[in-house]
């Protein structure tokens, strides 16, 4: 309910600004001096950022509203309390009845809040003990109900409706920006001393000193992005996820140069070109003709075999990161699957299995496909919501 209120408030620009005003007043009540210019500046800045991202919004508002580092803790707590949705119920009220800020603040018992905020600064345990003035416990764990966006982050991909997908696109797009680095044998100019001397430049720069090499120029190893290959299961059992994953593949192909994408159910289809050259709508329109087995049965082994035999060498699977996105439900031959996964794992630099069903705590890898493949898979990770996606991306980036 509270989140809903906040989401509505933040969606309607007017109310969001009002809330922002309430927030600045709260800060003033806490002895943080804020001028009108600061607020104007912040409202302009907000247009430039994605306010649904907690961090960005926090840093932006902090850089505008906080001038005194000694008050930072106060600011942080006020920020968390205010935007965690704790006061969101009142915000809605504020939005609907045009109440003045003063009234709203009175209403939420600002004194008590300030007291709390200052109290927390002394001993955070006191707050929990003293929260009787609030109908509900304040959420000092800061994780929050920030906006509908956070709910969305935790929402299972399988439960997405069209609106969720639309909202998640930015986040999915960000996931597409990751780069995994790989060392090459090539050298490039380096400003720092390193193991490798750049003879050509050193000599040229030391002509004045007649071959006495005084200033040395160095080279460093060049890194380039490691190729990524995504094999995404689009069989019937994955149907609820496939639209989100298609969006993910699209984002990856659009933003990452060294990527190859394939989808499979009963047979393997290369998607890279289709995704690179078309808009998402065109992709969806063309799917049925290009991918006849969409939402069909699953033959993971046979699909991987096609990949190994026909594509692995062409798309330079050697040295690349292979991501298999699948729930592991397989109706094909287990021996074939074992053979092909093992071949794939020997060829790839790392083999990741991303499973949308593995997100639940009670998840057990009972499915035949997963059981067969897991000895050959380097890492198995859940991929059922945006938070999972973020951690997958983090894991991959940290491979560097």
């Amino acid at each position, binding site marked *: 309910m509270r989140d809903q209120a906040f989401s509505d408030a933040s969606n309607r620009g007017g109310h969001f600004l009002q809330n922002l005003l309430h927030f600045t007043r709260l800060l003033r009540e806490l002895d943080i001096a804020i001028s009108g210019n600061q607020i104007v500046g912040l409202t302009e800045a907000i247009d430039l950022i994605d306010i649904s991202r907690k961090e960005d919004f926090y840093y932006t508002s902090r850089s505008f509203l906080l001038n005194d580092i000694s008050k930072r803790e106060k600011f942080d707590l006020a920020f968390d309390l205010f935007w965690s949705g704790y006061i969101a119920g009142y915000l809605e009220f504020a939005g609907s009845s045009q109440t003045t800020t003063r009234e709203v603040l009175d209403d939420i018992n600002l004194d008590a809040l300030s007291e709390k905020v200052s109290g927390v600064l002394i001993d955070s345990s006191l707050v929990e003990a003293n929260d009787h003035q609030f109908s509900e416990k304040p959420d000092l764990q800061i994780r929050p109900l920030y906006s509908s966006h956070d709910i969305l982050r935790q929402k299972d991909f399988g439960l997405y409706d069209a609106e969720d997908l639309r909202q998640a696109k930015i986040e999915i797009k960000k996931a597409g920006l990751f780069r995994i680095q790989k060392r090459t044998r090539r*050298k490039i100019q380096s400003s720092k001393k390193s193991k490798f001397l750049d003879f050509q430049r050193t000599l040229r720069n030391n*002509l004045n000193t*007649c*071959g006495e090499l005084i200033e040395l120029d160095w080279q460093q190893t060049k890194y380039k992005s490691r190729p990524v290959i995504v094999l995404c299961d689009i069989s019937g059992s994955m149907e609820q996820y496939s639209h989100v994953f298609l969006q993910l593949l699209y984002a990856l192909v659009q933003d990452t140069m060294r990527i190859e994408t394939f989808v499979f159910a009963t047979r393997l289809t290369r998607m890279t070109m289709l995704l690179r050259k078309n808009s998402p709508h065109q992709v969806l329109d063309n799917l049925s003709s290009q991918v006849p087995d969409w939402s069909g049965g699953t033959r993971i082994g046979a699909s991987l075999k096609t990949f190994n*035999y026909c594509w692995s*060498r*062409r*798309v330079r699977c050697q040295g690349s990161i292979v991501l298999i996105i699948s729930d592991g439900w397989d109706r094909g031959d287990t021996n074939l699957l074992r053979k092909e996964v093992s071949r794939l794992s020997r060829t790839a630099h790392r083999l990741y299995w991303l499973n949308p069903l593995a997100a639940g705590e009670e998840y057990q890898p009972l499915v035949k496909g997963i059981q067969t493949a897991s000895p050959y898979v380097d890492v198995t990770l859940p991929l059922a919501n945006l938070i999972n996606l973020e951690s997958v991306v983090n894991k991959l980036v940290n491979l560097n």
Partner: protein
Amino acid sequence: MKKYRSIDDIQELLFEHQYVAQRDLATSIYLSLNLQKPLFLEGEAGVGKTEVGKVLASILDVPLIRLQCYEGLDVHNAVYEWDYPRQILHLRMLEANRSSKEEMEEAIYSRKFLLTRPLLKAIEVEDDRVPVLLIDEIDRADEEFESFLLELLSDYQITIPEIGTIKADNPPVVIITSNRTREVHDALKRRCLYQWIDYPSFETEYQILTMKVPGLEQELSRKIISITQQLRDADLFKAPGIAETLDWGRAIQSMDQQILDEETINATLGVVLKYQDDILQTRNLLESKKIDA
């Protein structure tokens, strides 16, 4: 360079030099020689791509300059490099003679300190024996290397910042091969004639085998080729190429075998197939008579 009158001429010359070329390959070699365009050969491993370069060098009776590509291949290994130790020594001498900075610069960036690598060597020819430049397995080099080649392949020239542009008086015959482990950039392919070399037909392969492994029993040759051709149709991870057929022929010849029985096949499968899975599968196929030995 002398012009070749017809495709038949080329095919005959290739044959004389022990290379059996199918008509399509002969055509593109003919065009490449007459139009002075690089020839880009693609095909599975072991179908005789590299051999084209070698045979052409021997047909034209010119040196073969071969550049084997690998990941990380750069200008210093492919085009040119300065001889730094000698440059430094020379600088010291110049200093003793109290030369000016300009003189020094001119002196040390002269040709005698330039180490030529294959690509530059192919461009700089003193007599008129224009070499054959074989750039082998370009798909192994990284994308950055392809861009070095662009200038070379379109204008047959190489630019060295300290010296200037070196242009070939007579362009070399350029053969580029690729195993297609990755797609080579269009910009490079655009400058070349493209030829895909396929596995040969039974008759062609028989011709090749009898030519390259003389003295091998006729019946034995036919059997070897029959099996390798069947293996290419079987669902193997890596089908045998012509190189493997020839190796097999030589192996069996060296074993003094008169007949190719199942035991000999099993013992020598490692010559033809290089993956354990493929070998096991072939044994099964032989056992179940799906491959006719």
